[in-house]
């Protein structure tokens, strides 16, 4: 029996990490618009996930202005897979 990952369990973080699985990298504003959260809320979750080693942030530019590009790390992908598997186990009611 696995355990829910405390770094991913907040719904916003689960949405953030799941969204990043669709692409190699995503721009900060794009992710913010998809998740429909404020800059500060997204930054808070990104800081926590980066500290856990689940995402990386890279400075770059987008539409002529400086921005941040986000990507899942291999460790983040593994953590997300394990967390989702545990959620499915909870949903199925398997002990």
């Amino acid at each position: 029996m696995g355990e829910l990952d405390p770094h991913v369990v907040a719904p916003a973080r689960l949405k953030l990490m799941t969204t990043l699985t669709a692409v190699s990298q995503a721009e900060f504003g794009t992710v913010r618009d998809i998740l429909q959260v404020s800059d500060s809320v997204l930054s808070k979750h990104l800081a926590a996930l980066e500290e856990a080693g689940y995402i990386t942030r890279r400075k770059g530019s987008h539409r002529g202005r400086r921005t941040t590009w986000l990507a899942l790390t291999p460790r983040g992908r593994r953590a997300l897979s394990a967390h989702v598997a545990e959620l499915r186990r909870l949903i199925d009611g398997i002990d």
Partner: protein
Amino acid sequence: LAHPSVLTLRIGTRRDGWRGPPVSIRPGARLLAELESTVIVSNMENTDDGSSRREAASALRDAELSRTTLARAIAAPPSLFASLGAAVAIQIATAAIGLGGGHIWISVSGVALLAVVAGVQLMRFARHNGVWIRGFVSRVVLGTGTGASLAYAVPLAAAIWAGYGARWWLVPPLLNS
């Protein structure tokens, strides 16, 4: 007051009075965020009724919806495929003309043109969508998919054959002289 290095809390949610395992939390700037996550974990893992299942199902459904929303929003910018197709056609023609006429610079300039067009279109794609996609360069731009590889290799082989054969409709007589 000095902050303790670790706070140990007990968070219980069962109706029978079971209080749950002790949870250690590092105080600091993200204390509330960690506490929020810990409470959610504790609730999901320790609640016996169907609410934890509903929460888990809802969380998964919302996460998948966000992923699908992003995936559906990704689109090729206008003229991406037309410009890439034109650049590939020019590269094939210049390769044949250059090899057939013995003018390598023509072949090289065709490759350079394709590289420039591909680079510009990649930048446009990222600018248009706000994302990078692994495999886009190899499969779409460089055409490593089976269909794209055949669609490139067959015309290239035919063009080179025509170039070495000095077919008048491909290699201008001036270059072939």
